[in-house]
């Protein structure tokens, strides 16, 4: 693997059994991502974007090929190693936010650090992360007391607090109105640029995709570079 690349997806294939049929979702997909580079992936519903994201996050394993991240191939790692690896190096932002409803904003953010076994300055770091997304004063509020945009900011704070090398964002503005979505994405890009993180963004939005360094379209199980007008 080229040392410039933080992520190298090597001809991965993935299929799913549906009844009697075998559905090939990814058919030898390739992708290389440099440090601090942002990549947008567009595609129709059902094209395999979620499957790709699962494989990139190490939540699932490819049938063939490999995902190499930080010079470590997923295929050689155990489930436990992969879980730890993901927790340490990757931040994930979901369309539906996915905050734990019975934890406050601060607790949701600090949870990511606690899962890694960190104990030093956990609360301070969580506070800082919330401050960076403009929600320090809402630290003790529960998700049920926050708006959609605020929830997504907390989710962003959670993904950034661990100082990940790679951010995976699955339609982060998909559940938000246009203005709020724009604000949230502005925040994401600002943080990514400021902290020099690599970003894989799955989106339907052309304007958002165009803000990334490169855009790919997932079609027929492979990625093709997309030229946006």
């Amino acid at each position, binding site marked *: 693997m080229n040392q410039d690349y933080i992520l190298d997806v090597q001809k991965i294939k993935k299929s799913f059994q549906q009844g009697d049929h075998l559905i090939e979702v990814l058919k030898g997909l390739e992708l290389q991502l440099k440090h601090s580079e942002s990549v947008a992936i567009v595609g129709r519903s059902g094209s395999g974007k979620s499957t790709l994201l*699962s494989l990139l*996050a190490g939540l699932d394993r490819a049938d063939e090929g490999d995902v190499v991240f930080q010079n470590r191939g997923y295929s050689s790692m155990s489930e436990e190693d992969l879980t730890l690896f*993901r927790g*340490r190096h990757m931040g994930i932002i979901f369309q539906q936010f996915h905050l*734990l*409803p019975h934890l406050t904003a601060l607790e949701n953010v600090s949870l990511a650090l606690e*899962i890694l076994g960190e104990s030093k300055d956990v609360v301070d770091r969580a506070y800082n992360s919330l401050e960076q997304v403009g929600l320090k004063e809402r630290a003790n509020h529960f998700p*049920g*007391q926050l708006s959609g945009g605020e929830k997504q900011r907390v989710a962003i704070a959670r993904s950034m607090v661990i100082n990940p090398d790679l951010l995976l964002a*699955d339609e982060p503005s998909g559940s938000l109105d246009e203005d709020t979505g724009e604000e949230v994405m502005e925040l994401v890009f600002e943080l990514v640029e400021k902290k020099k993180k690599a970003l894989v963004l799955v989106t339907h939005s052309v304007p958002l995709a165009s803000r990334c360094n490169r855009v790919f379209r997932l079609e027929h199980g492979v990625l093709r570079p997309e030229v946006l007008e």
Partner: protein
Amino acid sequence: MNWRNLGLLSLREMLNHPRFVLIFVLNASLGLVGLMAVEHFKFSFNSVLEQRSRTLLGADLGIRSRQGMPKEELNKILERLPEGIKSYRQLSLFSMVQSAEQSRLISLRGIERKWPFYGGLELSKQGIFPRKVQKRAHFLKSGEVWAYEELRLQLGVEVGERIKIGGKDFRVADFVIEDSQQTFDQGGLAPRVFMRLDDLEKLDLVGSGSRYSERWYFKWPVPINSRELTSKVQKLEELLDDPAVEMLSPQKSSNNVGRTLNYLNDFLSLVSLVSLFLACVGLFYLYRSYLNNRRVEMATLCCLGLSRKKIFQLYLFHLTALSLLGTFFAFGISLVLFPLVSQLLSVFLPFDLPSYSGLRPFLIGGSVGLLGQWLLAYPLLKPIFSVRPQQIFQSLEDDSEKSGLLSMILSFLPWCLFYWALAIYASNSLIIGSAFVGIFIGVSVFAFPLGSFILSFLEKLELPGPLHFRLAIKTLTRFRFSSLSLFISLVLGSLLLNIIPQIEKNLQEEIQAPANEQRLPGLFVFDIQEEQVEPLKTMMKENDLKLQGISPLVRARIMRINGEEFKRADSESLTREEERTKRMRNRGINLTFRKELAESESLLRGRHFTQTYDSESDELPEISVEYRYAGRIGLEIGDTVEFDILDMPIKARIVGIRQIKWTSFMPNFFIVFQPGVIDDAPKTYLAVSPALETERKVWLQNEITKRFPNISMIDVESVITKLMSLLKQMSWALQVMALLSIFVGLFVLYSLVQHQMNQRKKDMTLLKVLGMRPNQLKKTILIEFLAISLCASLFGGLISLGVTFVFSYFFFDGIWTFDLLTPFLIALLLTGVCLAVSFVAARSTIKVRAQKLLQEFV
């Protein structure tokens, strides 16, 4: 929308959520099944008793006196009976029978040729007596007896051999294999021996002061149905003045036979109500969560034009359909369980029961199930009226109106009242039913704020520790409603599991303690004639034994209390307390006199006698009364009671209320006179022998029987053994029913946990995505349920100590032993089982793959 469409909509709702329907219906049916099985059993048993009632009595009606039958009373009845009525007379008493080697207490029956009008005996050699078709089997000749089969071994005699009764020899003509009139009155302590009535009258056993019962039985000249017969018997009983004389009816006979079992059925029904309560807790939680998840749908329906009232009806329909399904399942399961219940109670059953007792138990169980659900429907469905359709465009997470505490309590009130009424119906007792409901609802009501307080405290505490520990505590403290629902269910389960063995242990210890400490008498001796007291004492003394507790027994009737006539209780008794009071009022009374309190007595109120009565004095003679008896017939210190002692009226004043330790098995009396009042009345004596080794006891019994054939004796040890065995059987039956309740509780736990886990699937998966290992997740869940189940089990165990203390204070004269070990062990066992159940329920959620978060939940 019309009813049909509402119904179809609710049916579609059920078909779309089959898992929820299954869990709900199973919960509902398990909650009802215990009650239905007991109702099945009760109906079956009582219907068979009713069918056999005339066989049990041996006649259509009868009249009984506990001494000689007063002629006037008998004539009152005879005058009102129709022409052509047939009758026979019978005497019965306790006596001793002696063979060459052994002696035994028997229940001796003097019968006439016409006995009985219904039913009969199955004899080992002659077969059925009386035979219907062929000519009558050979009736007893003079000098012959028929004895119960068990006496063959006990006395070591065979047919044709001789035994002694009342000092005279009788030939054993046959043994009785089956007696259609067999009851459990004596609990098998005194097997029956039948002889000719004229033979019995010639014995010196029936003398003045002796305890015997005279009965007259009648057969109606034309067929008469039970209801008409009962009505006639009631009218005849109103004519009787002497409380020692009572009418006998088939219904009374069957009530007597079924009394022990009916008491047990009462408690079995009560215990089964615990299953119902636990199931209701579970169902409430499940349905509430279900409705919470339907709020978006409800808001959508509102937006589409369906009124909240219609939505309420829709879900009421839904709830009703689910309850009906649950009831049907419960009926099916109870039919399967019914043979098990019969088997469990077979030791109390004098006959086999049919396997199906009709639809009535189902109707009762069904009514309880439906009505219970409807009464819970209001608090459950009330939130529907607070759904605001405009919030469909926003997050619906926090839109429900929080109802005030008073409003919440009031909404549960109808259900609580229903449950109370059910408990009274199940126990046939206002006191016990109320106490039962009081305990369970009280514990729940107490456990709720206590649990809330503990959770608040834990939340504020911010305990340190590993992540899985802190996450578990946070989940517990923040999903408060589900945590508390689980907590209360387990507290009640633990309480129930602890109460029955504790009460059994307390009773066992109380009964056995005197035996273990050798304070128990060996033989309880009765029917000692006055002139036999000294010779008996001498005989005992010659053998280095002392006759103890020698107490005179004088038969009497209560005529007036405070100047008012003491009438028999003729009205129908609705509760067990009324039944007991009625029995107390319809008996003659045994009196004694003594200067000091006996060792087994203590004074509760007032004073004991200070001196022998002075007949010259103007003061009334003094008596003291046992406190429970006083309560039952309404006596208090200062009251005057007028007695009839063999036609001599004697008035006395109550000066003291006593408590008696009945488990001392010493001669004890409800009413005690001061000396100098009834000393000269005709009397017999009671006494006890000291505790003896078996061989010596048998020898003493034989010796007394030989020298004093009219004296009867009860082996106290065998009474205790019999009592303990009965207690054990009853306790076993109750514990099986309690286990059913525990099973329901565990099933409720399983459904609640599984439901919770389903709700938290997303959270669990998210934790995996964030890097939490499956092991850590498992530990989180285990700690959560360990905390709830251990706290609840221990709490329930501790409360059970308090409950059994209160119970024993009010119902068992304060018999109570402090025992921490049993509740502790039960808590450990219950915690282990709960953990296993919780883990099984949560397992599938833990296994959900992390990538599902990106698919299923989007």
